[in-house]
Structures are given as structure tokens and as C-alpha cells.
């Protein structure tokens, strides 16, 4: 069985972001980066499947500048077998990413594609669903449990009112939610070994995909800050404030 895991390199979730002074975007140079946490969960799930079944190959794919290779190496150290780096230096929209991934998947013919449900930078939550349309594969989103059976994947999904179990046929796509698993840390020997695993580099231009984006970010602004509140010394003071000042109870 072949599993493709698509990963994105993002600003570390624990870093306090800075907006560029000219409001053209968020400062991403010289900022700590990491594998998108949801994608890390996707890698972990693939590795657990590999540990449970025979003949599983895990291929990581990432689209980005030279630095994306670092994230791919980190993913290989977690247990993936090989990696594909699509070199593209400018920011891509979800539709563009989905089109690139569909090209790779057509060539690799995976049985299962795992992706994080959203990247924590742009918070779009789109790529897996779009890829499912482009490849005509089914897609189960927001997975908190995945069970494989003969040519099928059963997925427990986190939805607004609770949980839902969906079954999709393979080849299929699953996007991962937070509670699917807890990713492991890479061991030093695995990090060393990962350096020797195959990592193919493909230039975006070589994919024969012409893509012109219809979206333009005009500016990126700081959200309105809330004004400083009050620390009160008693419950009765709180109730008085809520009643008389805020008038919410």
C-alpha cells in the first residue's frame, strides 16, 4: 500500500507573529518554522499504519522554497520512506496546491492520501477537499480515528454537534484533526538515517501547470486590540459590573 502525506512548512505555532510595517504580510523571514501541526499528525498516522501492516510505503510531498526540504527531512526522520519536494518560491493558493498534488498523485497512484485539515498560517481548510474533486477520490475530513479494512477506510469525524462515522473507498483522502493521535519525536538514529533517504526535487515549472491566481492580498492588518480590563476584588463587585456597567445580565 502506498500512502502520500502532504506537508507544509509553517511559522511555529508558539511564535508570536509580527505584521510587516508596510502591512504587506506577516513577517516570515528569520522566524522559527516547523511542520504544520496537523500535517505532523498525518505523518504519525501514516507511520502507525506502516507499523501495523506489511508493505506500506510512505511518501511525503511538500511544496515550497529550498527550506521545505528541511521539513521533509524531519518527516523522513519520523518514519516516512521517501520525499518529493516541489520547488516553488512564491506563496500558492489552496487550488494551486491541490492541482500540484493531483499531478503528483496521478503519477504515484497512492491508495491513501493524508493531509492536515488546515495549515495554521492561512487557516484555509481547503486542500484535501479540493484534491478529492480533482482526483475524483472520496474524502473524509476532520478525522479523529482511522480504521483500514479491505479497500475501505472508516473514519470518525469531528463535526459541530458531535461525531460522525463515514466510510470511504480507496483510493481515498483523509484530512486529520487534532485528536487523531499524538505525534512522536524523532530519535537521533532516525534523524541520521533520514539523511540518506531519497528526496526527489521537482521544479514547479516542470509540472506543466499554468496557474494564474485570481486572489490578491491588499494588506494584512493587526486585529483590533481589546482595551485593558479591570481586576476586581470580589464576586459581588463582578456581579455589580456585569449588571450596571456592562448590562449583560
Amino acid at each position: 500500500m502506498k500512502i502520500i502525506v502532504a506537508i507544509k512548512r509553517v511559522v511555529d505555532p508558539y511564535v508570536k507573529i509580527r505584521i510587516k510595517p508596510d502591512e504587506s504580510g506577516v513577517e516570515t523571514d528569520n522566524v522559527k518554522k516547523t511542520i504544520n501541526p496537523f500535517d505532523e499528525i498525518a505523518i504519525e498516522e501514516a507511520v502507525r499504519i506502516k507499523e501495523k501492516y506489511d508493505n506500506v510505503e510512505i511518501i511525503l510531498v511538500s511544496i515550497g522554497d529550498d527550506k521545505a526540504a528541511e521539513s521533509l527531512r524531519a518527516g523522513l526522520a519520523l518514519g516516512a520512506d521517501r520525499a518529493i519536494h516541489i520547488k516553488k518560491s512564491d506563496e500558492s493558493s489552496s487550488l494551486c496546491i491541490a492541482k500540484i498534488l493531483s499531478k503528483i498523485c496521478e503519477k504515484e497512484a497512492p491508495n491513501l492520501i493524508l493531509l492536515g485539515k488546515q495549515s495554521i498560517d492561512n487557516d484555509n481548510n481547503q486542500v484535501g477537499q479540493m484534491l478529492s474533486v480533482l482526483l475524483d477520490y472520496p474524502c473524509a475530513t476532520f478525522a479523529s480515528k482511522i480504521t483500514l479494512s479491505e479497500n475501505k477506510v472508516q473514519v470518525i469525524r469531528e463535526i459541530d454537534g458531535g461525531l460522525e462515522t463515514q466510510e470511504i473507498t480507496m483510493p481515498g483522502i483523509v484530512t486529520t484533526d487534532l485528536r487523531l493521535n499524538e505525534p512522536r519525536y524523532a530519535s537521533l538514529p532516525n534523524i541520521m538515517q533520514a539523511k540518506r533517504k531519497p528526496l526527489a526535487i521537482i521544479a514547479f515549472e516542470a509540472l506543466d501547470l499554468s496557474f494564474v491566481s485570481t486572489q490578491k492580498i491588499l494588506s494584512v492588518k493587526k486585529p483590533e486590540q481589546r482595551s485593558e480590563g479591570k481586576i476586581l476584588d470580589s464576586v459581588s463587585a463582578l456581579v455589580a459590573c456585569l449588571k450596571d456597567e456592562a448590562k449583560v445580565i
Partner: protein
Amino acid sequence: MTVLVVIEHDGTEIKPSVRNLISAAQQLGHDIHGIMIGFNLSSLVENNHLLAGIDRLIVNDHSVYEAQLAENISQVIAQYAPNYTHVLFASSTYGKDTMPRVAALLDVEPLSDVTNIIDENTFIRPIYAGNANAVVHSSAKIQVMTIRTSAFSLTKESEFAVEIENSQVIITADHSVLIEKTLSKQDRPALSHAKVIVSGGRGLQSAENFKLLESLADKLNAAIGATRAAVDAGFVPNDYQVGQTGKVVAPELYIAVGISGAIQHLAGMKDSKVIVAINKDPDAPIFAIADYGLVGDLFEILPELEKALTS
């Protein structure tokens, strides 16, 4: 401008957030159509007082849509979409699952989680867990998007006459099957449209203690929310989660109990009108965004607060 609004329901009720969605659509155009897809919809169509503001309702009522799977529902919506300038979904798990598929079927770049509409091509959406707002211009041939409904006001509920168009588009889902749905039973207002929310974090320490929030919530007719840490620890089910990847809420009053205030949680509640924080750590980040703070032991403060609200 003709706007198509996707109407979400659970088979028995239309989701109340549709009123926020319609008010967002009203900022874009005067001609607003709705599309409702499912099975046995006749009572929903008759009891349509929530849909004030919609001129025409396209109803697609067939057993193939009973499971409400994004796989085939997205194809139905994509068939209608070319007649419209904008297609709007609520930013619910249903909307998030379905909207990008519709966009891919139409080969357009969509927008997620729109919080402001500047004009028909310009929108604001939060990025980086709400720590920045992107102003995005889109020249897509059809503007497909999810709307963060908590950022838009409600339409007025009223009796109105809507033109019904029964659709005959039948598309099956061939690769996905719904096995079961386990919805949490709650007798209180839903998180997405409660006026008051009482929310708990790791500070509650256990599922048992989390129940302490219930009587306070009862007093205030409030919904109960939780942080990711509280859900991960098993205090409450996943659908309680408020935050970047859970539900985004903006009630009149948000009472954060034993919540330190990780940025991922703040992303889901910082637009609440009034925020109260109760925490024993005076340096907890939640105090930086709270209007009113009480520093102290929540196990002493909660019963006292309940008593004060009773009298």
C-alpha cells in the same frame, strides 16, 4: 448581484445561523436565493420563518441526500452556482467540508471564514489564528466562500412568502457512506448562537469538576464551552471546543473559568462583547483580553458567583 446561500439543516431543523448568513448575503446583493438539499424536507420548507430575506428557495429533496454527504451535495451546488455571482456557506464543519469541493468543481479560488465584506470583490478574513486580518481582493468568476456567521448580525425573523423551486437534480455518492452520527445531547443553547457562554479549561481538573459549570450555565441560560486542553483531557466531548480549530463564538458574555488563554483558544472567543476571566494565576494571558477579572480559586469563586446571581 445574485447570491446563492447554502441552507444547512439537520433534517429536522434549519440551523439558526442561516439568519447571519442571509444578512451577510444582503451586503452583497438584493437578489438572494437559497438552496436546501436533503431528504423529507417538506416540514422544513413549510416552517421557513428563519429564511426571511430569501427570494427564492431551491429545494432538492431526495433519499440520495439523506446522509448529507459533501461528495454529492457539492456536485448539486456546483450545478446551480454558475447562475450566481456569489455562493455563501456558513463556516460550520458542514460548510468547511463542502465549500472547497464546490470551488474546485467550478475551478475557482474560494475564501474561508470571511468576517467582513468590503465590496463584492473585497473581503476580510482572519489568518494566523486571528492574530492578523487579511484584506483580500478576489476576481474569481464566481465568489465561493464560507462566512464566519458570528461576525454578522441577524436578519429579522418574519413571515414572508418565498418562491419555491423544486429541483430534480439527482446525484448519488458512490464512494462515501455515512455509518453513524453520534450527536451530543444538550438541553442548553448551542454554542454558535448562545448569548452567554460559560467555558472551562484545564483548571477545572476533572470531568467531575467540569459539571460545576452546569449550574452556573443554568442560571445564565448559557451554553458551555471548553478549551482544547479540557477536551483532550476527556473532561467534555469534542463539540464543546472553542478556538482556532474548534468553534468561533462571539456571545454577549463569555465567562472563562480556569482558562489560561492560549492564542489558539483566544482565536475562538476574543470577539465576545464582554469577557470575564476567573483564574488563580494573575499572570495568565486570559486577563490581558478580559474586561473583568477575578484572581483566585475557582472552586471558591464559582459557588459564590452562583449564589450572588440567585439573590
